[in-house]
C-alpha cells in the first residue's frame, strides 16, 4: 500500500495543510485573514476539507495514543545516585568544556588540530638562519623551502578548505539577499523558492560547526567569530519553508543584513586567501616578530 502523498495545495475555496494545522493549534493569526468561525463553517460545508482535517486529527490521535514509558518506582533515587558523585559545586559548568566532544567531532577535529600542531612545530623548528640576509638568493631559497614543508602545506590545505567554505556561504547569502518574491496576486501572496539555497545551507551547517571549533582551538578568533555569526543564519535558511513568502524572505534578509554578515565574510575570505599563498618572498625582520 503506497503512502498517502501529501501535497501542499491551495485551490480556490479549499483550506491548505498549513491552515488546517493553524486551526488545530489555534494559530489562526498566522494563517492569514480567515477567522476561526469561517474555518469552522467551511469545514462544516466542505466535505473534502473536512475529510482532510479528520485525517489530520486521526494521525495526531495515533501519535497521542502512543504510551509513554514509566520509569519505575525508584527512578528519582536512581537519578540522584547517578548525579550525586558528580556534583562539585553549583555554578561550575564542566559541560561547557565537553559539550562539543562528541566522538564524531573529536575524530574530525582531532585530525585537523593535529595538522595545526604539526604546522606550528614545523614552523618553530625551521627557524630562519640568522646569518642569511633577506633578499639574497639563499634567503629566498630558505623561505620557499619552508613554504613547501609538510606542516605549512597542511595548514594551507586547511585555509583553502575554510576559504572554500566562505565562498559557498557568500554565494548562498547573496542569493537570499537578492531574492525577490514573484507570482500572481498581491505581494503578500507571492513566494520565492529557496529550496536550492536550503539544501546548500543544510550541507554547510556541520562543516561550519567543525571549522568554528577548529578555529577556536587554534586561537583563530577572527575566523571563529564570523563562523559563529554565520551558523544561526544557515540554520534559519535550512529550516525555513522551501517556498517563502515576502515577509519570511524579508526576515531572512534582515537576519543577514543586521549582522553585516556579507561584509564580514568577504573581509575574512580575503584574509584567509592571502594566508593560503605560500611565502615566496623573504620577509623583513621587522614583520617577523608580529
Amino acid at each position: 500500500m503506497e503512502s498517502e502523498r501529501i501535497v501542499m495545495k491551495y485551490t480556490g475555496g479549499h483550506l491548505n495543510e498549513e491552515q488546517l494545522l493553524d486551526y488545530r493549534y489555534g494559530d489562526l493569526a498566522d494563517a492569514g485573514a480567515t477567522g476561526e468561525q469561517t474555518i469552522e463553517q467551511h469545514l462544516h460545508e466542505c466535505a473534502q476539507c473536512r475529510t482532510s482535517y479528520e485525517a489530520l486529527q486521526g494521525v495526531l490521535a495515533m501519535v497521542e495514543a502512543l504510551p509513554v514509558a514509566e520509569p519505575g518506582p525508584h527512578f528519582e533515587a536512581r537519578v540522584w545516585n547517578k548525579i550525586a558523585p558528580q556534583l562539585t559545586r553549583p555554578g561550575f559548568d564542566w559541560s561547557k568544556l565537553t559539550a562539543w566532544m562528541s566522538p564524531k567531532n573529536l575524530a574530525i577535529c582531532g585530525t585537523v588540530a593535529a595538522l595545526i600542531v604539526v604546522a606550528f612545530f614545523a614552523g618553530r623548528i625551521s627557524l630562519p638562519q640568522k646569518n642569511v640576509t633577506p633578499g639574497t638568493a639563499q634567503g629566498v631559497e630558505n623561505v620557499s623551502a619552508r613554504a613547501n614543508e609538510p606542516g605549512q602545506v597542511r595548514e594551507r590545505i586547511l585555509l583553502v578548505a575554510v576559504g572554500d567554505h566562505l565562498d559557498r556561504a557568500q554565494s548562498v547569502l547573496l542569493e537570499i539577499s537578492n531574492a525577490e518574491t514573484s507570482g500572481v496576486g498581491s505581494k503578500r501572496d507571492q513566494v520565492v523558492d529557496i529550496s536550492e539555497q536550503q539544501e546548500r545551507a543544510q550541507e554547510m551547517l556541520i562543516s561550519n560547526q567543525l571549522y568554528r571549533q577548529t578555529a577556536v582551538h587554534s586561537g583563530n578568533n577572527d575566523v571563529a567569530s564570523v563562523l559563529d555569526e554565520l551558523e544561526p543564519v544557515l540554520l534559519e535558511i535550512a529550516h525555513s519553508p522551501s517556498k517563502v513568502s515576502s515577509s519570511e524572505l524579508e526576515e531572512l534578509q534582515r537576519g543577514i543584513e543586521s549582522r553585516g554578515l556579507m561584509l564580514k565574510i568577504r573581509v575574512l575570505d580575503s584574509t584567509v586567501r592571502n594566508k593560503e599563498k605560500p611565502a615566496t618572498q623573504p620577509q623583513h625582520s621587522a614583520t617577523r616578530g608580529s
Partner: protein
Amino acid sequence: MIRMDGGDAEHVAQALRGDQDAFRVLVERHSRTLFRLAFRMTGNEQDAEEVVQEAMLRAYRRLDKFEARSNFGTWLYRIAVNCSLDMMRKRRPEKAQRQLAKGDESEMQDPLDTAVSNDPGPDRLMLSGELGEQVKVAMMQLSPVERTAFVMRHFEGNSIEEIGETLGLGAGATKNSVFRAVQKLRQHLGPLVGHGQAKSATGEI
C-alpha cells in the same frame, strides 16, 4: 508544560549555599516530568533517563545563572529540551544525516529503539503491537529539530515563540518545523488511520 513553582526558589537558594539535600528535593520533584518529555523526544527509555541525569547536572552547574524570580521548572524544562536535542543528534548516525541532507529518509530507525511499556492501561491497548511500532518509526523519522518542535507544540503546548527561543529559530522556521513534522507523520501514518478518514493512493478507505 512544567509550571511548578512553590518552594523551588527556596531550595535553589539553599542549594547555591552548598546544601546538596536541597537540590535532591528538586531532583525528586521534577525528574519524572522531565522523563516523560525526554521519552517523547528520544523515543527511548535509556536515553530519556540519561537526558534527565544530564539535565539535572547541567542545572546544578548553572544554578548561579538561574534568576530567582523565574520559574525553576520552566528553566529546567528548557535545559531538558536541549539535552534531548543533543542526545538525538548524538544517536543519529552520520550516514543518516547525509541521507537526510539529500532527502533520502529511507533508513531513519532509531538503532536504540526499545519496546514501549507493557502498562496495560485501557487507553493504551488501542495502540499496541505493530501500530505502535509504526508510530514510533514515524516519530524517529523526524529530524531532531522537527521532533523537538512537534513535541513542544503538540504535547507541551508551547507557543511558537517559546519553541523558537529554545531552538534558536525565527517564528517562520519554527512553524515550518512543526508543519514538516506533521507532514511527515501524515505521510507515514495517514494510510493507517481507520474508519474511512484517510484517502490512500490505492483509494482504500
